[in-house]
Protein backbone atom coordinates (compact mmCIF):
# COMPACT_ATOMS: atom_id res chain seq x y z
CA UNK A 1 0.00 0.00 0.00
CA UNK A 2 2.80 2.34 0.99
CA UNK A 3 4.48 1.61 -2.29
CA UNK A 4 1.27 2.41 -4.18
CA UNK A 5 1.14 5.83 -2.52
CA UNK A 6 4.79 6.41 -3.36
CA UNK A 7 4.16 5.44 -6.95
CA UNK A 8 1.22 7.82 -7.08
CA UNK A 9 3.50 10.60 -5.84
CA UNK A 10 6.04 9.74 -8.50
CA UNK A 11 3.41 9.77 -11.21
CA UNK A 12 2.12 13.08 -9.86
CA UNK A 13 5.60 14.56 -10.07
CA UNK A 14 6.05 13.21 -13.56
CA UNK A 15 2.79 14.77 -14.67
CA UNK A 16 3.06 18.14 -12.96
CA UNK A 17 6.77 18.36 -12.18
CA UNK A 18 7.56 21.10 -14.66
CA UNK A 19 4.78 23.28 -13.21
CA UNK A 20 5.85 22.69 -9.62
CA UNK A 21 9.49 23.31 -10.28
CA UNK A 22 10.61 26.75 -9.16
CA UNK A 23 12.87 27.15 -12.19
CA UNK A 24 12.90 25.84 -15.75
CA UNK A 25 15.13 22.82 -16.10
CA UNK A 26 17.69 24.45 -18.38
CA UNK A 27 17.52 27.89 -16.81
CA UNK A 28 20.70 29.14 -15.17
CA UNK A 29 19.06 30.05 -11.91
CA UNK A 30 21.94 30.85 -9.67
CA UNK A 31 25.69 30.76 -9.36
CA UNK A 32 27.39 27.41 -9.98
CA UNK A 33 27.69 24.82 -7.21
CA UNK A 34 25.63 26.61 -4.60
CA UNK A 35 24.92 24.59 -1.48
CA UNK A 36 21.31 23.77 -0.67
CA UNK A 37 19.57 26.79 0.73
CA UNK A 38 16.33 28.71 0.81
CA UNK A 39 16.54 29.82 -2.81
CA UNK A 40 17.74 26.50 -4.17
CA UNK A 41 16.36 23.64 -2.10
CA UNK A 42 18.95 21.19 -3.32
CA UNK A 43 21.57 23.60 -4.49
CA UNK A 44 22.80 24.08 -8.04
CA UNK A 45 25.07 22.20 -10.40
CA UNK A 46 28.21 23.34 -12.20
CA UNK A 47 26.17 25.40 -14.66
CA UNK A 48 24.13 27.03 -11.97
CA UNK A 49 20.96 25.06 -12.79
CA UNK A 50 18.59 24.33 -9.92
CA UNK A 51 18.91 20.66 -8.96
CA UNK A 52 15.49 20.41 -7.30
CA UNK A 53 13.83 21.64 -10.50
CA UNK A 54 15.84 19.25 -12.60
CA UNK A 55 14.88 16.40 -10.31
CA UNK A 56 11.18 17.18 -10.70
CA UNK A 57 11.43 17.58 -14.46
CA UNK A 58 13.56 14.46 -14.85
CA UNK A 59 10.87 12.25 -13.36
CA UNK A 60 8.79 12.56 -16.50
CA UNK A 61 11.37 11.16 -18.90
CA UNK A 62 12.21 8.22 -16.64
CA UNK A 63 8.60 7.26 -15.91
CA UNK A 64 7.36 7.72 -19.45
CA UNK A 65 10.21 5.59 -20.72
CA UNK A 66 9.57 2.87 -18.16
CA UNK A 67 5.81 2.66 -18.49
CA UNK A 68 5.66 3.09 -22.25
CA UNK A 69 8.34 0.45 -22.69
CA UNK A 70 6.57 -1.87 -20.27
CA UNK A 71 3.24 -1.35 -22.01
CA UNK A 72 4.75 -2.17 -25.38
CA UNK A 73 6.55 -5.18 -24.03
CA UNK A 74 3.42 -6.56 -22.37
CA UNK A 75 1.44 -6.05 -25.57
CA UNK A 76 4.14 -7.82 -27.55
CA UNK A 77 4.23 -10.64 -25.02
CA UNK A 78 0.44 -11.00 -24.93
CA UNK A 79 0.06 -11.06 -28.69
CA UNK A 80 2.84 -13.43 -29.56
CA UNK A 81 2.66 -15.52 -26.39
CA UNK A 82 -1.05 -16.17 -26.88
CA UNK A 83 -0.81 -16.88 -30.59
CA UNK A 84 2.16 -19.14 -30.06
CA UNK A 85 0.59 -21.22 -27.31
CA UNK A 86 -2.94 -21.30 -28.69
CA UNK A 87 -2.19 -22.39 -32.22
CA UNK A 88 0.80 -24.55 -31.31
CA UNK A 89 2.46 -26.60 -34.02
CA UNK A 90 4.54 -24.75 -36.56
CA UNK A 91 3.47 -21.24 -35.49
CA UNK A 92 4.60 -22.01 -31.96
CA UNK A 93 7.83 -23.51 -33.22
CA UNK A 94 8.72 -20.43 -35.30
CA UNK A 95 7.88 -17.90 -32.59
CA UNK A 96 9.66 -19.89 -29.88
CA UNK A 97 12.80 -20.31 -31.95
CA UNK A 98 12.92 -16.59 -32.77
CA UNK A 99 12.58 -15.83 -29.07
CA UNK A 100 15.34 -18.32 -28.29
CA UNK A 101 17.68 -16.68 -30.76
CA UNK A 102 16.88 -13.16 -29.62
CA UNK A 103 17.37 -14.11 -26.00
CA UNK A 104 20.93 -15.20 -26.59
CA UNK A 105 21.70 -11.58 -27.53
CA UNK A 106 22.59 -9.57 -24.46
CA UNK A 107 19.82 -7.01 -24.01
CA UNK A 108 21.51 -3.92 -22.65
CA UNK A 109 24.51 -3.82 -25.03
CA UNK A 110 22.16 -4.41 -27.96
CA UNK A 111 20.00 -1.56 -26.72
CA UNK A 112 23.05 0.70 -26.51
CA UNK A 113 24.05 -0.11 -30.08
CA UNK A 114 20.53 0.50 -31.40
CA UNK A 115 20.12 3.73 -29.47
CA UNK A 116 23.40 5.05 -30.85
CA UNK A 117 22.26 4.49 -34.43
CA UNK A 118 18.64 5.54 -34.13
CA UNK A 119 17.52 9.10 -33.41
CA UNK A 120 17.55 9.62 -29.68
CA UNK A 121 14.04 10.18 -28.43
CA UNK A 122 12.43 8.55 -25.43
CA UNK A 123 9.65 7.19 -27.63
CA UNK A 124 12.02 5.34 -29.91
CA UNK A 125 13.93 4.09 -26.90
CA UNK A 126 10.71 2.86 -25.31
CA UNK A 127 9.77 1.08 -28.53
CA UNK A 128 13.10 -0.72 -28.74
CA UNK A 129 12.97 -1.68 -25.08
CA UNK A 130 9.40 -2.85 -25.42
CA UNK A 131 10.16 -5.12 -28.32
CA UNK A 132 13.36 -6.53 -26.84
CA UNK A 133 11.98 -6.79 -23.34
CA UNK A 134 8.78 -8.40 -24.56
CA UNK A 135 10.72 -11.47 -25.61
CA UNK A 136 10.98 -12.88 -22.10
CA UNK A 137 7.36 -12.01 -21.55
CA UNK A 138 6.40 -14.09 -24.58
CA UNK A 139 7.74 -17.15 -22.80
CA UNK A 140 5.98 -16.39 -19.55
CA UNK A 141 2.65 -15.68 -21.22
CA UNK A 142 3.02 -18.62 -23.53
CA UNK A 143 3.44 -21.09 -20.69
CA UNK A 144 0.36 -19.76 -18.94
CA UNK A 145 -1.76 -19.77 -22.09
CA UNK A 146 -0.60 -23.32 -22.77
CA UNK A 147 -2.06 -24.49 -19.50
CA UNK A 148 -5.28 -22.50 -19.90
CA UNK A 149 -5.92 -23.45 -23.49
CA UNK A 150 -5.72 -27.14 -22.63
CA UNK A 151 -8.38 -26.68 -19.95
CA UNK A 152 -11.68 -28.41 -20.45
CA UNK A 153 -13.73 -25.26 -20.40
CA UNK A 154 -11.87 -24.00 -23.45
CA UNK A 155 -12.66 -27.28 -25.10
CA UNK A 156 -16.26 -26.90 -24.02
CA UNK A 157 -16.53 -23.42 -25.42
CA UNK A 158 -15.29 -24.73 -28.72
CA UNK A 159 -17.86 -27.53 -28.58
CA UNK A 160 -20.50 -24.84 -28.27
CA UNK A 161 -19.33 -23.22 -31.48
CA UNK A 162 -17.04 -20.39 -30.43
CA UNK A 163 -14.36 -19.15 -32.81
CA UNK A 164 -10.65 -19.00 -32.00
CA UNK A 165 -10.70 -15.23 -31.78
CA UNK A 166 -13.63 -15.32 -29.38
CA UNK A 167 -12.02 -17.93 -27.15
CA UNK A 168 -8.77 -15.99 -26.99
CA UNK A 169 -10.33 -12.68 -26.09
CA UNK A 170 -13.11 -13.87 -23.78
CA UNK A 171 -11.66 -16.93 -22.07
CA UNK A 172 -7.89 -16.87 -22.27
CA UNK A 173 -7.20 -13.17 -21.84
CA UNK A 174 -8.98 -12.84 -18.45
CA UNK A 175 -6.95 -15.79 -17.24
CA UNK A 176 -3.61 -14.24 -18.04
CA UNK A 177 -4.33 -10.61 -17.11
CA UNK A 178 -3.02 -10.92 -13.52
CA UNK A 179 0.20 -12.42 -14.82
CA UNK A 180 0.42 -9.68 -17.44
CA UNK A 181 0.06 -7.07 -14.67
CA UNK A 182 3.03 -8.49 -12.78
CA UNK A 183 5.02 -8.70 -15.98
CA UNK A 184 4.14 -5.07 -16.65
CA UNK A 185 5.34 -3.82 -13.26
CA UNK A 186 8.54 -5.85 -13.40
CA UNK A 187 9.24 -4.67 -16.92
CA UNK A 188 8.59 -1.05 -15.92
CA UNK A 189 11.14 -1.32 -13.14
CA UNK A 190 13.72 -2.88 -15.43
CA UNK A 191 13.20 -0.33 -18.19
CA UNK A 192 13.42 2.64 -15.86
CA UNK A 193 16.77 1.40 -14.60
CA UNK A 194 17.84 0.80 -18.19
CA UNK A 195 16.74 4.30 -19.12
CA UNK A 196 18.72 5.77 -16.24
CA UNK A 197 21.67 3.65 -17.34
CA UNK A 198 21.40 4.96 -20.89
CA UNK A 199 21.14 8.50 -19.58
CA UNK A 200 24.23 7.96 -17.48
CA UNK A 201 26.12 6.77 -20.55
CA UNK A 202 25.01 9.91 -22.34
CA UNK A 203 22.79 8.05 -24.76
CA UNK A 204 19.51 9.55 -23.65
CA UNK A 205 17.57 12.25 -25.42
CA UNK A 206 19.79 15.34 -25.00
CA UNK A 207 16.76 17.66 -25.11
CA UNK A 208 15.10 16.14 -22.09
CA UNK A 209 16.43 16.14 -18.55
CA UNK A 210 16.55 12.75 -16.94
CA UNK A 211 18.02 11.35 -13.77
CA UNK A 212 20.67 9.33 -15.54
CA UNK A 213 22.04 12.46 -17.18
CA UNK A 214 22.05 14.27 -13.86
CA UNK A 215 24.05 11.50 -12.17
CA UNK A 216 26.37 11.35 -15.14
CA UNK A 217 26.99 15.09 -15.08
CA UNK A 218 27.60 15.12 -11.36
CA UNK A 219 29.95 12.20 -11.68
CA UNK A 220 32.02 13.42 -14.61
CA UNK A 221 32.17 17.09 -13.65
CA UNK A 222 33.63 16.54 -10.22
CA UNK A 223 30.58 16.30 -7.98
CA UNK A 224 31.82 12.98 -6.68
CA UNK A 225 35.46 13.98 -6.30
CA UNK A 226 34.64 17.23 -4.53
CA UNK A 227 32.11 15.61 -2.22
CA UNK A 228 29.21 17.79 -3.42
CA UNK A 229 26.53 15.42 -2.07
CA UNK A 230 23.53 17.55 -3.03
CA UNK A 231 24.46 17.24 -6.65
CA UNK A 232 24.91 13.47 -6.78
CA UNK A 233 22.60 11.99 -4.17
CA UNK A 234 19.11 13.33 -5.03
CA UNK A 235 18.83 11.80 -8.51
CA UNK A 236 20.45 8.59 -7.27
CA UNK A 237 18.06 8.28 -4.34
CA UNK A 238 15.11 9.10 -6.57
CA UNK A 239 16.06 6.21 -8.85
CA UNK A 240 16.60 3.76 -6.00
CA UNK A 241 13.32 4.66 -4.32
CA UNK A 242 11.35 4.40 -7.55
CA UNK A 243 12.88 1.07 -8.38
CA UNK A 244 12.13 -0.24 -4.91
CA UNK A 245 8.56 1.01 -5.08
CA UNK A 246 7.93 -0.88 -8.29
CA UNK A 247 9.63 -3.99 -6.99
CA UNK A 248 7.41 -4.00 -3.91
CA UNK A 249 4.28 -3.54 -5.98
CA UNK A 250 5.45 -6.42 -8.13
CA UNK A 251 5.97 -8.69 -5.12
CA UNK A 252 2.63 -7.66 -3.67
CA UNK A 253 0.82 -8.42 -6.91
CA UNK A 254 2.55 -11.76 -7.22
CA UNK A 255 1.31 -12.69 -3.79
CA UNK A 256 -2.21 -11.65 -4.62
CA UNK A 257 -2.13 -13.93 -7.63
CA UNK A 258 -0.43 -16.82 -5.89
CA UNK A 259 -1.53 -16.67 -2.23
CA UNK A 260 0.72 -19.61 -1.36
CA UNK A 261 3.69 -17.26 -1.62
CA UNK A 262 2.48 -15.45 1.50
CA UNK A 263 3.29 -18.47 3.59
CA UNK A 264 6.60 -19.17 1.93
CA UNK A 265 8.35 -15.90 2.55
CA UNK A 266 7.35 -14.61 5.92
CA UNK A 267 10.20 -12.17 5.85
CA UNK A 268 8.93 -8.68 6.58
CA UNK A 269 11.00 -7.23 3.82
CA UNK A 270 8.85 -8.79 1.14
CA UNK A 271 5.48 -8.48 2.76
CA UNK A 272 5.50 -4.91 3.96
CA UNK A 273 4.52 -3.67 0.53
CA UNK A 274 1.15 -3.96 -0.99
CA UNK A 275 -0.07 -7.30 0.27
CA UNK A 276 0.18 -7.09 4.04
CA UNK A 277 -1.78 -3.90 4.42
CA UNK A 278 -4.60 -5.20 2.35
Amino acid at each position, binding site marked *: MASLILLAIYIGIAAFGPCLAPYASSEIAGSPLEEPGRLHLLGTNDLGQDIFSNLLCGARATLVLGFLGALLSVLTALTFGTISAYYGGRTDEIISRIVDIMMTLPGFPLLIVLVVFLPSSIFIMAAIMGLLGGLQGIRIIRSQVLSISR*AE*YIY*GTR*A*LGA*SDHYIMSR*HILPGILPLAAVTFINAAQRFMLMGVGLGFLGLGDPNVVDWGQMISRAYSNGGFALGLWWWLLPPGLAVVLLSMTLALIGYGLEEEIEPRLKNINNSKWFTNGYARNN
Partner: protein
Amino acid sequence: MLEIINLKTQFPSPDGLVNAVDSADLQIEDNERLGLIGETGCGKTVLGMSIIRLLPPSTRIHGQIIYKGRDLLNLKEEEMRLLRGKEISMILQNPTTSLNPVLKIGDQIAEVIQLHKDCNRKEAKTKAVEILAAAMIPEAPKRADQYPHELSGGMKERVMIVMGLASQPSFVIADEPTKGLDSGTKAEIIRLIRDMTSGRSMLMITHDLAAAGEICDRIAVMYAGELLEMASAKTILHDPQHPYTQGFINSLPSRGLLPISGSSPSLIDPPHGCRFHPRCPWAMDICRREHPQIIKLEKGHFSRCFLCA
Protein backbone atom coordinates in the same frame (compact mmCIF):
# COMPACT_ATOMS: atom_id res chain seq x y z
CA MET B 1 -31.09 -37.60 -38.25
CA LEU B 2 -27.57 -38.88 -37.73
CA GLU B 3 -26.00 -41.85 -39.39
CA ILE B 4 -22.51 -43.10 -38.66
CA ILE B 5 -21.13 -45.42 -41.33
CA ASN B 6 -18.00 -47.47 -40.81
CA LEU B 7 -16.36 -44.89 -38.57
CA LYS B 8 -12.74 -45.47 -37.65
CA THR B 9 -10.94 -43.08 -35.35
CA GLN B 10 -7.27 -43.71 -34.78
CA PHE B 11 -4.58 -41.90 -32.82
CA PRO B 12 -0.91 -42.32 -33.64
CA SER B 13 1.09 -43.10 -30.50
CA PRO B 14 4.72 -44.05 -29.90
CA ASP B 15 3.64 -47.69 -29.46
CA GLY B 16 1.55 -47.85 -32.62
CA LEU B 17 -1.83 -46.79 -33.90
CA VAL B 18 -4.56 -46.68 -31.23
CA ASN B 19 -7.86 -47.86 -32.71
CA ALA B 20 -10.14 -45.93 -30.39
CA VAL B 21 -13.21 -46.45 -32.57
CA ASP B 22 -13.21 -49.35 -35.01
CA SER B 23 -15.75 -49.72 -37.79
CA ALA B 24 -18.69 -48.30 -35.90
CA ASP B 25 -22.12 -48.19 -37.55
CA LEU B 26 -24.85 -46.33 -35.75
CA GLN B 27 -28.10 -44.53 -36.55
CA ILE B 28 -29.92 -42.06 -34.40
CA GLU B 29 -33.45 -41.17 -35.48
CA ASP B 30 -35.26 -37.87 -35.02
CA ASN B 31 -36.20 -37.36 -31.36
CA GLU B 32 -34.39 -40.50 -30.36
CA ARG B 33 -32.13 -40.77 -27.35
CA LEU B 34 -29.40 -43.32 -27.71
CA GLY B 35 -27.24 -44.44 -24.81
CA LEU B 36 -23.68 -45.44 -25.52
CA ILE B 37 -22.47 -47.73 -22.76
CA GLY B 38 -19.04 -49.12 -22.08
CA GLU B 39 -16.13 -49.28 -19.70
CA THR B 40 -13.66 -46.46 -19.30
CA GLY B 41 -11.31 -46.34 -22.27
CA CYS B 42 -13.49 -48.32 -24.67
CA GLY B 43 -13.72 -45.42 -27.11
CA LYS B 44 -17.18 -44.07 -26.35
CA THR B 45 -16.09 -40.51 -25.68
CA VAL B 46 -13.89 -40.56 -28.78
CA LEU B 47 -16.92 -41.60 -30.82
CA GLY B 48 -18.79 -38.57 -29.49
CA MET B 49 -15.86 -36.28 -30.19
CA SER B 50 -15.58 -37.64 -33.72
CA ILE B 51 -19.12 -36.47 -34.42
CA ILE B 52 -18.44 -32.92 -33.26
CA ARG B 53 -14.94 -33.11 -34.72
CA LEU B 54 -13.00 -31.89 -31.73
CA LEU B 55 -10.03 -34.21 -31.64
CA PRO B 56 -6.30 -33.49 -31.80
CA PRO B 57 -5.06 -32.63 -35.30
CA SER B 58 -3.03 -35.85 -35.51
CA THR B 59 -6.19 -37.98 -35.27
CA ARG B 60 -7.14 -40.03 -38.32
CA ILE B 61 -10.87 -40.34 -38.92
CA HIS B 62 -12.29 -42.51 -41.70
CA GLY B 63 -15.84 -43.33 -42.67
CA GLN B 64 -18.89 -41.13 -42.87
CA ILE B 65 -20.99 -39.24 -40.37
CA ILE B 66 -24.13 -38.10 -42.14
CA TYR B 67 -26.06 -35.40 -40.34
CA LYS B 68 -29.20 -34.11 -42.07
CA GLY B 69 -27.82 -35.28 -45.41
CA ARG B 70 -24.36 -33.74 -44.99
CA ASP B 71 -21.19 -35.67 -44.26
CA LEU B 72 -19.69 -33.94 -41.24
CA LEU B 73 -16.26 -35.35 -41.96
CA ASN B 74 -16.15 -33.50 -45.29
CA LEU B 75 -17.15 -30.10 -43.92
CA LYS B 76 -14.63 -27.30 -43.70
CA GLU B 77 -13.59 -26.30 -40.19
CA GLU B 78 -15.51 -23.01 -40.43
CA GLU B 79 -18.73 -24.76 -41.56
CA MET B 80 -18.29 -27.22 -38.74
CA ARG B 81 -17.84 -24.41 -36.23
CA LEU B 82 -21.15 -22.90 -37.30
CA LEU B 83 -22.86 -26.24 -36.68
CA ARG B 84 -21.30 -26.70 -33.26
CA GLY B 85 -23.51 -25.48 -30.49
CA LYS B 86 -26.27 -24.42 -32.87
CA GLU B 87 -27.19 -27.75 -34.43
CA ILE B 88 -25.00 -30.22 -32.59
CA SER B 89 -24.19 -29.38 -29.04
CA MET B 90 -22.41 -30.99 -26.19
CA ILE B 91 -22.83 -31.50 -22.47
CA LEU B 92 -19.30 -32.07 -21.26
CA GLN B 93 -18.15 -34.34 -18.49
CA ASN B 94 -16.48 -32.95 -15.34
CA PRO B 95 -18.52 -29.79 -14.68
CA THR B 96 -15.87 -28.65 -12.20
CA THR B 97 -13.22 -28.24 -14.84
CA SER B 98 -15.50 -27.57 -17.78
CA LEU B 99 -16.76 -24.22 -16.51
CA ASN B 100 -14.45 -21.26 -16.76
CA PRO B 101 -13.53 -20.43 -13.15
CA VAL B 102 -13.14 -16.70 -13.80
CA LEU B 103 -16.50 -16.04 -15.49
CA LYS B 104 -19.91 -15.85 -13.84
CA ILE B 105 -22.39 -18.63 -14.52
CA GLY B 106 -24.89 -16.28 -16.15
CA ASP B 107 -22.24 -14.86 -18.47
CA GLN B 108 -21.15 -18.31 -19.55
CA ILE B 109 -24.68 -19.31 -20.46
CA ALA B 110 -25.39 -15.95 -22.08
CA GLU B 111 -22.28 -16.46 -24.15
CA VAL B 112 -23.73 -19.58 -25.77
CA ILE B 113 -26.96 -17.78 -26.56
CA GLN B 114 -25.13 -14.78 -27.95
CA LEU B 115 -22.90 -16.91 -30.15
CA HIS B 116 -25.84 -18.38 -31.97
CA LYS B 117 -28.70 -15.94 -31.70
CA ASP B 118 -28.89 -12.42 -32.91
CA CYS B 119 -29.21 -10.57 -29.62
CA ASN B 120 -27.23 -8.25 -27.43
CA ARG B 121 -25.53 -9.14 -24.18
CA LYS B 122 -28.31 -7.87 -21.96
CA GLU B 123 -31.02 -9.86 -23.71
CA ALA B 124 -28.80 -12.92 -23.65
CA LYS B 125 -28.32 -12.54 -19.91
CA THR B 126 -32.03 -12.21 -19.25
CA LYS B 127 -32.56 -15.31 -21.35
CA ALA B 128 -29.84 -17.13 -19.42
CA VAL B 129 -31.60 -16.46 -16.11
CA GLU B 130 -34.89 -17.64 -17.63
CA ILE B 131 -33.49 -20.96 -18.72
CA LEU B 132 -31.67 -21.42 -15.44
CA ALA B 133 -35.01 -21.00 -13.71
CA ALA B 134 -36.61 -23.41 -16.16
CA ALA B 135 -33.99 -25.97 -15.19
CA MET B 136 -35.35 -25.91 -11.64
CA ILE B 137 -32.38 -24.05 -10.29
CA PRO B 138 -33.55 -22.20 -7.17
CA GLU B 139 -32.80 -18.49 -6.97
CA ALA B 140 -31.77 -18.38 -10.60
CA PRO B 141 -30.92 -14.64 -10.74
CA LYS B 142 -28.58 -15.04 -7.77
CA ARG B 143 -26.98 -18.15 -9.21
CA ALA B 144 -26.37 -16.43 -12.51
CA ASP B 145 -24.33 -13.84 -10.66
CA GLN B 146 -22.10 -16.41 -8.96
CA TYR B 147 -18.84 -18.00 -10.00
CA PRO B 148 -18.54 -21.76 -10.58
CA HIS B 149 -16.71 -22.40 -7.30
CA GLU B 150 -19.71 -21.09 -5.35
CA LEU B 151 -21.96 -23.83 -6.70
CA SER B 152 -22.33 -27.43 -5.60
CA GLY B 153 -21.47 -30.33 -7.88
CA GLY B 154 -25.07 -31.08 -8.76
CA MET B 155 -25.73 -27.41 -9.44
CA LYS B 156 -22.73 -27.22 -11.74
CA GLU B 157 -23.92 -30.29 -13.61
CA ARG B 158 -27.27 -28.55 -14.14
CA VAL B 159 -25.46 -25.50 -15.44
CA MET B 160 -23.54 -27.72 -17.87
CA ILE B 161 -26.81 -29.22 -19.10
CA VAL B 162 -28.41 -25.80 -19.45
CA MET B 163 -25.36 -24.54 -21.34
CA GLY B 164 -25.38 -27.47 -23.71
CA LEU B 165 -29.04 -26.91 -24.50
CA ALA B 166 -29.19 -23.11 -24.34
CA SER B 167 -28.95 -22.70 -28.09
CA GLN B 168 -31.80 -25.17 -28.73
CA PRO B 169 -29.70 -27.64 -30.72
CA SER B 170 -31.41 -30.48 -32.54
CA PHE B 171 -28.75 -32.99 -31.59
CA VAL B 172 -26.95 -33.22 -28.24
CA ILE B 173 -23.99 -35.29 -27.19
CA ALA B 174 -23.99 -35.76 -23.42
CA ASP B 175 -20.74 -37.09 -22.03
CA GLU B 176 -21.11 -38.75 -18.62
CA PRO B 177 -23.71 -36.32 -17.31
CA THR B 178 -24.32 -38.40 -14.18
CA LYS B 179 -20.71 -38.95 -13.23
CA GLY B 180 -19.67 -38.28 -9.66
CA LEU B 181 -23.10 -37.34 -8.30
CA ASP B 182 -24.73 -38.76 -5.20
CA SER B 183 -27.83 -40.84 -5.81
CA GLY B 184 -30.35 -38.17 -4.82
CA THR B 185 -28.79 -35.55 -7.04
CA LYS B 186 -28.40 -38.11 -9.78
CA ALA B 187 -32.12 -38.82 -9.82
CA GLU B 188 -32.81 -35.08 -10.21
CA ILE B 189 -30.23 -34.72 -12.99
CA ILE B 190 -31.71 -37.71 -14.81
CA ARG B 191 -35.15 -36.14 -14.63
CA LEU B 192 -33.75 -32.82 -15.83
CA ILE B 193 -31.99 -34.39 -18.81
CA ARG B 194 -35.09 -36.36 -19.69
CA ASP B 195 -37.31 -33.29 -19.58
CA MET B 196 -34.94 -30.96 -21.37
CA THR B 197 -33.99 -33.31 -24.18
CA SER B 198 -37.47 -34.48 -25.03
CA GLY B 199 -38.12 -33.58 -28.64
CA ARG B 200 -34.42 -33.68 -29.48
CA SER B 201 -32.00 -36.35 -30.53
CA MET B 202 -29.31 -37.26 -28.08
CA LEU B 203 -26.28 -39.45 -27.81
CA MET B 204 -25.68 -40.09 -24.15
CA ILE B 205 -22.24 -41.44 -23.38
CA THR B 206 -22.15 -43.11 -19.98
CA HIS B 207 -21.13 -46.14 -18.00
CA ASP B 208 -24.16 -45.76 -15.82
CA LEU B 209 -26.50 -48.37 -17.24
CA ALA B 210 -29.31 -47.48 -14.85
CA ALA B 211 -29.26 -43.82 -15.89
CA ALA B 212 -29.14 -44.78 -19.56
CA GLY B 213 -32.09 -47.10 -19.00
CA GLU B 214 -34.16 -44.26 -17.57
CA ILE B 215 -33.28 -41.65 -20.16
CA CYS B 216 -32.63 -43.47 -23.42
CA ASP B 217 -34.85 -45.17 -25.96
CA ARG B 218 -32.10 -47.40 -27.27
CA ILE B 219 -28.76 -48.50 -25.90
CA ALA B 220 -25.59 -49.44 -27.75
CA VAL B 221 -22.84 -51.30 -25.93
CA MET B 222 -19.25 -50.62 -26.83
CA TYR B 223 -16.19 -52.67 -26.02
CA ALA B 224 -12.57 -52.15 -27.10
CA GLY B 225 -13.57 -49.69 -29.82
CA GLU B 226 -16.31 -51.89 -31.27
CA LEU B 227 -20.07 -51.91 -30.93
CA LEU B 228 -21.06 -55.27 -29.44
CA GLU B 229 -24.78 -55.04 -28.94
CA MET B 230 -27.55 -52.62 -29.75
CA ALA B 231 -31.21 -52.82 -28.81
CA SER B 232 -34.01 -50.95 -27.10
CA ALA B 233 -33.16 -49.90 -23.56
CA LYS B 234 -35.65 -52.40 -22.18
CA THR B 235 -34.15 -55.31 -24.11
CA ILE B 236 -30.59 -54.44 -23.10
CA LEU B 237 -31.55 -54.24 -19.44
CA HIS B 238 -33.78 -57.30 -19.28
CA ASP B 239 -32.81 -59.58 -22.14
CA PRO B 240 -29.20 -58.94 -23.14
CA GLN B 241 -27.78 -61.45 -25.59
CA HIS B 242 -24.09 -60.65 -25.69
CA PRO B 243 -22.01 -62.18 -22.86
CA TYR B 244 -20.30 -58.83 -22.30
CA THR B 245 -23.61 -57.01 -21.85
CA GLN B 246 -24.75 -59.76 -19.48
CA GLY B 247 -21.54 -59.40 -17.52
CA PHE B 248 -21.93 -55.63 -17.48
CA ILE B 249 -25.43 -55.90 -16.05
CA ASN B 250 -24.34 -58.46 -13.46
CA SER B 251 -21.69 -56.07 -12.30
CA LEU B 252 -24.32 -53.47 -11.34
CA PRO B 253 -24.73 -52.98 -7.59
CA SER B 254 -28.39 -54.02 -7.80
CA ARG B 255 -27.37 -57.30 -9.40
CA GLY B 256 -24.77 -58.23 -6.83
CA LEU B 257 -21.62 -56.43 -8.05
CA LEU B 258 -20.24 -59.41 -9.95
CA PRO B 259 -17.20 -58.16 -11.84
CA ILE B 260 -16.21 -59.33 -15.30
CA SER B 261 -12.90 -61.10 -14.79
CA GLY B 262 -9.80 -59.76 -16.53
CA SER B 263 -9.20 -56.21 -17.68
CA SER B 264 -9.91 -54.20 -20.83
CA PRO B 265 -7.71 -55.09 -23.78
CA SER B 266 -5.22 -52.78 -25.43
CA LEU B 267 -6.63 -50.69 -28.25
CA ILE B 268 -3.30 -50.78 -30.07
CA ASP B 269 -3.21 -54.53 -30.45
CA PRO B 270 -6.68 -55.91 -29.64
CA PRO B 271 -7.13 -59.68 -29.12
CA HIS B 272 -7.36 -61.76 -32.25
CA GLY B 273 -10.78 -63.15 -33.10
CA CYS B 274 -13.57 -61.83 -30.87
CA ARG B 275 -12.21 -58.98 -28.80
CA PHE B 276 -14.04 -60.16 -25.72
CA HIS B 277 -12.98 -63.81 -25.87
CA PRO B 278 -10.15 -63.67 -23.28
CA ARG B 279 -12.69 -62.56 -20.67
CA CYS B 280 -15.73 -64.40 -21.95
CA PRO B 281 -17.03 -67.31 -19.83
CA TRP B 282 -18.54 -68.96 -22.94
CA ALA B 283 -15.56 -68.55 -25.26
CA MET B 284 -15.39 -71.26 -27.96
CA ASP B 285 -12.72 -72.22 -30.46
CA ILE B 286 -14.19 -70.11 -33.21
CA CYS B 287 -14.07 -67.02 -30.95
CA ARG B 288 -10.29 -67.25 -30.85
CA ARG B 289 -9.95 -67.72 -34.59
CA GLU B 290 -12.52 -65.52 -36.25
CA HIS B 291 -13.76 -62.02 -35.72
CA PRO B 292 -17.56 -62.09 -35.35
CA GLN B 293 -19.73 -59.78 -37.46
CA ILE B 294 -22.60 -57.86 -35.95
CA ILE B 295 -25.82 -59.75 -36.72
CA LYS B 296 -29.49 -58.96 -36.45
CA LEU B 297 -31.27 -61.12 -33.89
CA GLU B 298 -34.74 -59.66 -34.19
CA LYS B 299 -36.20 -56.31 -35.08
CA GLY B 300 -33.89 -53.63 -33.73
CA HIS B 301 -31.66 -56.00 -31.78
CA PHE B 302 -28.10 -56.51 -32.99
CA SER B 303 -25.29 -58.49 -31.40
CA ARG B 304 -21.71 -59.35 -32.29
CA CYS B 305 -21.38 -62.89 -30.95
CA PHE B 306 -21.09 -66.42 -32.36
CA LEU B 307 -23.33 -67.68 -29.58
CA CYS B 308 -26.22 -65.63 -30.91
CA ALA B 309 -25.78 -66.85 -34.48
